[in-house]
C-alpha cells in the first residue's frame, strides 16, 4: 500500500471509529489544535448523514421528534456506513434497520420509514409510458382472457402491520396522529407515481392478490379465476374489470399485450 493510500485509510478509520493515529500526520494550524480541526470532519460526517435521513424521512422525524430521530439516525450511520457515491441511496436500509432491536417493539417506526421510502422511490423511479383506457379498446372480447399487463416502474406493494396509513396522513396534514396500533390483518398498500406525484392507497385483500399476480405477468382470464375463489364467482370478471379500470385511470399500468 502506498503512503497516500495508507494515509487515506487511516483518515477514514479516524472518522468512522475514532482511532486517531492519523493526527500524528496532521499539523496544528496557526490558531487551532489539530484535534479540533480534525473534529470538523468527524462532526460533519455524522451530521450530514443524519440530515440526509431527516430529509428522506420527514414524517418519521416529526413523529418521533429531534432527539429520538437523531439517536436512531446516529445508530444507523454507525451500523450502515454509506457504500454508494450518491447520498440519495443512503437511507434505503433504514426501514429494515428499524425492524431490529431496540426498535422492533415499535413496528410503527419501520412501517412509517418503509412507507416514506416507497414514496421517495416512486418519486424518482424510472419513467415509462402510461397506459390509457383507449388502449383496451383495440382488443376483441375473446382476447381479454389472454391479456397481460405491465406495471409502471414506480409502482410498489408494501405490507404493513400497523395503522401507518392513518398515522402518515395525520402527520402529512400536520395533525395529531392516532395512537399507533397493530392491525388484525396486515395492511396492503400500493405506492406509485401519478404524473409527478407519489401516491399510495390501501388495497382490499382481493385487489392486492390481483395486483400482485397481474404485475407478475398472470393473464386476465387466470386472474378472474383466482378472483372467483375470493368472493362471488359470478361477479369475478366484473370485479376484475373494475380493478383494472381503477389501475389504468390511476396511471398504474404501462402497457397491455395479448398473450401469444
Amino acid at each position: 500500500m502506498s503512503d497516500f493510500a495508507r494515509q487515506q485509510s487511516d483518515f477514514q478509520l479516524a472518522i468512522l471509529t475514532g482511532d486517531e493515529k492519523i493526527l500524528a500526520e496532521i499539523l496544528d494550524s496557526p490558531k487551532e489544535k489539530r484535534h479540533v480541526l480534525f473534529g470538523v470532519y468527524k462532526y460533519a460526517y455524522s451530521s450530514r448523514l443524519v440530515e440526509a435521513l431527516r430529509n428522506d424521512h420527514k414524517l418519521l422525524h416529526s413523529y418521533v421528534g429531534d432527539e429520538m430521530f437523531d439517536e436512531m439516525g446516529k445508530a444507523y450511520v454507525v451500523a450502515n456506513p454509506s457504500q454508494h457515491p450518491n447520498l440519495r441511496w443512503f437511507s434505503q436500509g433504514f426501514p429494515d434497520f428499524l425492524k431490529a432491536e431496540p426498535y422492533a417493539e415499535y413496528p410503527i417506526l419501520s412501517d412509517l420509514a418503509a412507507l416514506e421510502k416507497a414514496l421517495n422511490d416512486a418519486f424518482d423511479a424510472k419513467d415509462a409510458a402510461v397506459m390509457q383506457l383507449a388502449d383496451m379498446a383495440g382488443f376483441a372480447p375473446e382476447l381479454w382472457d389472454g391479456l397481460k399487463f405491465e406495471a409502471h416502474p414506480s409502482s410498489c406493494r408494501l405490507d404493513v402491520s400497523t395503522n401507518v396509513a392513518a398515522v402518515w396522513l395525520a402527520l402529512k396534514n400536520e395533525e395529531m396522529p392516532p395512537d399507533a396500533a397493530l392491525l388484525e390483518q396486515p395492511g396492503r398498500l400500493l405506492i406509485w407515481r401519478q404524473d409527478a406525484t407519489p401516491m399510495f392507497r390501501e388495497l382490499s385483500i382481493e385487489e392486492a392478490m390481483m395486483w400482485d399476480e397481474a404485475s407478475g405477468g398472470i393473464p386476465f382470464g387466470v386472474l378472474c379465476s383466482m378472483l372467483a375463489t375470493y368472493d362471488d364467482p359470478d361477479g369475478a370478471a366484473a370485479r376484475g374489470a373494475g380493478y383494472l379500470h381503477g389501475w389504468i385511470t390511476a396511471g398504474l399500468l404501462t402497457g397491455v399485450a395479448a398473450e401469444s
Partner: protein
Amino acid sequence: MNASTRFPTTQTEPSVRDGAIPADKPAYLGFGLGLRAQHYDEILSGNPPIDWFEVISENYMLPGGQPLRVLDRIRERYPVVMHGVSLSIASTAPPNFEYLAGLKDLARRVEPKWISDHLCWTGVHGKNLHDLLPIPYTNEALDHVVSRVQLVQDYLGRAIALENVSTYLQFHDSEMTEWEFLSELSRRSGCWLLFDVNNVYVSAFNHGYDPHAFLEGIPADRVVQFHLAGHSHMGTHIIDTHDHPVCNEVWDLYAAAIRRFGKVSTMIERDDNIPSLDELIVEVNQTREIAAGLLPSMPRAG
C-alpha cells in the same frame, strides 16, 4: 489549439496526450446560479435574468421522475454546467466505473457546457463519507491524481474542471502548496480549474497564508469558472457551510480574481439555508456589477 501549445512547459512529460481529449477552453457563460429544487417553479414560470445554471450532478443521477423532467426544461432555456460531489478524483480506491457511467449518461442527456468536481476524495474500502476530504500536496498524490484525471477524461471524452475545496487541516508530508499542486495537475492532465473564491478565503484563513498568494499562483488561462459562497466563522477557523450570503472579504477577493483571471464564468453557490430566488439574484447581479466595474467591455445588469 491544444493544451500544450497554449500552455508551454519546460518539463519533460507531455501536457495532454496527443488528440486524446478536446482541449478547447469552454466558452464564457456570464453570471449564473446553482440550481436548487426550491426555485424550480419560479425559474420555469418567470425566466429570471440569470445567464446560466450549475446543477449538482448527483441530484439528477436518478432513474427518472420529476427532477430530470425539470432539468430537461431548464436546459432548453439556459446553458447548464454539471458539478459533482462524488467523483472522488483523489481517492486511492479503484475507480468507480458505475458512477462514471451514470455521470456520462447524464452528460449525454444534459449536454453540459462542462463537467466539474472537486480536488478531494470521499472514501476508500468501498465506503463513502460524503465529504470533500483533504489530501497531502505530495508528488506521490500528484502523480496519482494526474493519472486518475486522465482516466476520467478518457472515459468521459472531455476535459473536466476541478475545484479547490475548503480545507481545515494540513498534512506534515506536503511538499508543495495547494496552488502549486493545482497548477501542476492542470498542466499535466489538461483539466480546467474551477476557482472557488470563498474556498480560497476559508483555506487561507485556516492555514494562515495570504489568499492573494493562492490567487497569484494559479495559471490564469486554466480557470474556467468562479464559485462565490458564504461560510461560518468559528473564531479560530472557518467552516465552509455555503449557508450565508457572500461576505465583504470574499467580494474583495473576487475583485482581485477578476483582475488576475479576466472574464470568467461566475456563479453564486448556496447549498443550505436557501433564500428566495430574488435574494440570490441580488447576489448574482452583484457579481455582474463588480465585473462590469473592473472589465470595461462587460455590460452591466439590466
